[in-house]
């Protein structure tokens, strides 16, 4: 199987490549039946709104997300006009915690896509262009990485190297780079056979120049699509790890952590655990809409 997936003879249309590769296909979502244009607009709008709301949280909601008010414990949403979405088990404002709680997942998600995407794309272009031993070694490395479940890598690194935000980014990026690697590698394998590359070689262009000015631009579009899909994966992984207590520690507001903390009060105050999850779902759903629309557009 592994060999089939990486066989050079399988090179096809780059977008088809995402459809043909079982691993890459698995990262794609089953799209809702919406026209691509509408899905794109809705996705960008929703994600933009979420990004703005969470990044501007200190301006939008002046209430301190850490401020406890023990006279107003576990107020239901709508019970008190001062706390439109209620309060949690120690009387902290839910709305403020919800908006602040999205900042870390969004930042971690974006950073890990950036790190994993840069690493994977660069290695993929190099492997595809260099071929031979370099390609074999890098491809096997990517295969090995894919054979390791992110959760085990995460638990290992976060336990022994420390539970810091930067380690969280590294862990999530490690799970993402093989996808970028495969996409770029297969695209470069077909691009390097094109006439303009042969022309550049004939004109005496250096290898570096060919990679920088001919191969990297060829993978740009695909990398953007892959990055979008990887962002939703990163959000899901990041929130799962913080839920497990492997990410940021209390009392910091964070969507995953808030679900974990609120779960104890599920029977008496359902909103503490359930509201933060809505943030994650909206962000992931919006990202998936954008990713699917981009694939559709590339296909046409």
């Amino acid at each position: 199987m592994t060999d089939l997936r990486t066989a050079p003879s399988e090179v096809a249309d780059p977008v088809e490549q995402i459809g043909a590769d079982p691993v890459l296909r698995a990262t794609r979502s089953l799209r809702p039946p919406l026209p691509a244009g509408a899905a794109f607009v809705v996705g960008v709008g929703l994600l933009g709104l979420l990004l703005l709301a969470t990044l501007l949280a200190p301006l939008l909601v002046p209430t301190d997300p850490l401020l406890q008010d023990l006279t107003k414990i576990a107020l239901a949403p709508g019970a008190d006009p001062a706390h439109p979405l209620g309060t949690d088990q120690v009387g902290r404002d839910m709305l403020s915690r919800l908006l602040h709680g999205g900042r870390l997942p969004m930042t971690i998600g974006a950073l890990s896509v950036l790190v994993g995407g840069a690493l994977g794309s660069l290695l993929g272009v190099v492997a595809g262009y260099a071929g031979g031993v370099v390609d074999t070694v890098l491809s096997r490395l990517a295969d090995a990485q894919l054979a390791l479940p992110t959760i085990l890598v995460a638990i290992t690194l976060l336990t022994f190297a420390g539970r810091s935000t930067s380690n969280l980014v590294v862990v999530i990026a490690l799970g993402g780079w093989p996808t970028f690697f495969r996409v770029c590698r297969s695209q470069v394998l077909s691009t390097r056979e094109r006439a303009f590359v042969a022309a550049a070689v004939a004109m005496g262009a250096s290898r570096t120049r060919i990679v920088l000015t001919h191969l990297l631009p060829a993978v740009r579009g695909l990398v953007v699509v892959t990055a979008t899909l990887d962002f939703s994966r990163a959000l899901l992984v990041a929130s799962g790890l913080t839920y497990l207590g492997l990410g940021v520690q209390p009392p910091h507001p964070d969507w995953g952590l808030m679900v974990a903390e609120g779960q104890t009060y599920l029977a008496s105050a359902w909103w503490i655990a359930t509201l933060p999850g809505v943030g994650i779902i909206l962000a992931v759903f919006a990202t998936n809409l954008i990713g699917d629309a981009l694939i559709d557009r590339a296909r046409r």
Partner: protein
Amino acid sequence: MTTYLLRRIGSSLIALWLVLTLVFFALHLAGDPVRLMLDPSASEETVAAFRESLGYDAPLVVQYLRFLGSVATFSFPDSLRFRVPASDVVLEKVGPTAELAVTAIIIAVAVALLVGYLGAQARRGWVRALVTWPVSVLQAFPTFYLGVVLALVVGVQLGWLPTGGSGTPAHLVLPALTLALALVPAIARTLRASTVRVAGEDFVRTARARGLRRSEVVGRHILPNALLPVITVIGLELGTVLGGSIVLEKVFSWPGLGQLMITSVVNRDYPVVLASVTFLAVVFIVLNLLVDVAYGLIDPRIRIGARGRV
């Protein structure tokens, strides 16, 4: 077939070696593991004695080889918390996790069969929308959150099932169902695509031309062939199964390996973390290998392709 097998086993071994090396160096290069395990106020003598008892005073290369040896024999230092070998602590918890994972996979295939098949067969737009919308929203749910929502609705509000713990079959339902739902999108998607492809094949047309009933065409000709790729998807989704069960064991306080691993991380019981990570990595890689080999056995095109094309 032999070449294919050897190649596949080779890349599994590389993956295994990589994960073991990662575990070892994460443990030894990130800081002093002995001090991590002990109380910060421990005296120098205690630290030295403990270091010696673990064999951590030997050169790094020796320790690395010893570590690989300990993995081969699955013998790890004693758990700091339970005072028995960490491997025993881990093996005790394998049962519940396996139970959860296997039940979830069975449910997932059943549900995906329905969803994927309906999605492929439905000509009317609203049936397709009815099938694809929930699945696409479901995909945006983090597994742990899906568990929390199901616990709230089915467990707390309706009171039908226990929201946590173990002991009766009823305790298994919610965690297994949640894990199954996490798997459905990927399986359903593959099943849908393969159903559409198989339904267009010549032998299906021939079966129809022979005047077979619709149920016979579907049951005997389309489904068995469309189910083949599902094996691959389950293999690819083993990571989801693993990650999902670790998270869901916390959600539903299911006493399995995931629960053990997370509490050991919090309690700094490093031998247990080491043993459970190694154990799960080995199991995961071996299962992946078996799935690929099974697929090669069922579908000769895979192994011939692997030899002929590369």
